[in-house]
């Protein structure tokens, strides 16, 4: 299983800087980051190499953070890569709550992070479809 950290943040200058600063000072490496916002506040999602440690650090700085299991799956970095995964999930009536990707080697492969309702179920379906699901150590190696 892989983990991501969600952080509550207001849409104000310096919010991301503060979070990345805390992580950098503690030698935590950031792999991917996404930001979504509405009505003056937002959620920053972080993929880091030491999720548990990062989570505890943020909490100790009174930053509302949430540790969450996600599925990290290897995707061919070519047209139709994402579509293939989305199709498998929809055929199995699994609703994607959130998804984001990052490229590991340009033109070769990327990693897709998926959040779904029933994590283990979705993971086994993806694995049975021949896709490679990573744990958090592996994410970082890629």
């Amino acid at each position, binding site marked *: 299983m892989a983990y991501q950290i969600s952080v509550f943040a207001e849409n104000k200058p310096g919010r991301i800087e503060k979070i990345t600063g805390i992580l950098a000072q503690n030698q935590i490496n950031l792999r991917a980051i996404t930001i979504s916002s509405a009505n003056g506040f937002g959620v920053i999602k972080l993929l880091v190499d030491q999720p548990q440690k990062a989570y505890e650090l943020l*909490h100790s700085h009174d930053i509302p953070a949430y540790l969450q299991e996600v599925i990290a799956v290897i995707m061919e970095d070519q047209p139709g890569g994402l579509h293939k995964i989305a199709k498998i999930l929809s055929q199995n009536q699994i609703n994607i709550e959130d998804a984001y990707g990052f490229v590991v080697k340009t033109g070769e492969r990327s990693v897709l992070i998926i959040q779904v309702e029933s994590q283990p179920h979705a993971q086994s379906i993806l694995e049975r479809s021949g896709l490679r699901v990573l744990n958090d150590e592996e994410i970082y190696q890629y």
Partner: protein
Amino acid sequence: MYWEKEIETISPEELKTLQQERLKLTLQRAAQTPFYRKLFAQAKIKPELIKTKEDLQFIPPTTKEDLRSGFPFGFLSVPLTEVVRLHSSSGTTGTPTVIYHTASDLARWSNQVARSLFTVGVRKNDIFQNMMSYGLFTGGLGMHYGAERLGAMTIPIGAGNSKRQIWFLKHFKSTVIHIIPSYALLLSNLIKSEGLDPKTDFNVNIILLGAEPHSEGTRKRVEQAFGAKAYNSYGLSEMNGPGVAFECGYQTGMHLWEDYYLVEIVNPKILTPCQPGELGEIILTTINREATPILRYRTKDLAFYYQEPCPCGRTHLRISRIQGRADDMFIFRGVNIFPNQIETVLMNIPEVGANYRIILSREDYRDIMRIEVEIKPELFAGELPKLERLRERITNELRAEILVTPQVVLVEPGTLPTQEGKAIRLIDKRKL
């Protein structure tokens, strides 16, 4: 031109005699109520020894909290069968305050309002569009019955629904409107956006502003927008409602009807009488009401009084505009709100953190309430839609309590500013 010349231009000596007669009666009525019976006993007051306005100082003032503690019948001085109506304050935490009226109370109140309307020039041939909300709130019904008593055709349209307001203004050629000042400015803009001119396409010539303290500047803007005279008035449900004090044609201060109330203006901290021009809290004693006598009611409203006689010839005391509140209660779109109500709601929601901040501002003549709420780190659920649902839940629960819809903004814990460690709960940026 007076509605009741004799009483409106009464000499100070005659007024004093009248007030003393009515005070005597009021004290007798008060002694019938559970609250004052107990108060008189505890404070060792013999009501028959309280004869003049000056003697009132021996009676402890009555507060809003006292009225609440007296719920439901603590202030009732007549058998319930004599009561024909009650009004109740809306939007307060917990127990409401209730004021009962007998048929003759309502007749006197209607007369008081009719007199007030006549004072600003409303006549029988006027068409009166009452844009105040009806119901437990006294603003709508109080003015309604006064206008009917005066004989004006009254349109009980109530608050809001601007399209319908404009339709009625146009088709019935309403000449008098009763309206909240911030809504008056909003409505004039809406009229313009429909391609009409509030000054020339309508017949409004008298605007009665109520339910919201406002400045001279706001009055001027309302007057310019409609090309009509706008008059300030003062009232509160504990003291009947609209018509406690009303401006006359000179628009310099409001005549507080002293045949209905004994008025004191005092230093809110030590309750000593203020000098003319000195800002103080208005304290009122009903002397023309049967069902719910209230002695020395602390209105918490701040004003000063004028000493000079009014050129209109009315001898009743002139008070200034309401300049503010003696406590932190604020009035928002005509609704009385205590920060404590907001706090109570917020603190019952587990996801809400320790701090919050209420920011009142005014945009395009409309009052805006923004409430910044810190969320609890440990209850943060990680997803934007969940936060959005939390925000909606907070908004809905607040609306249920304070009857207006605030803009709720979620903020990070520990980010709201404090002053010497104390949280700043209320910032009022509205310019009156």
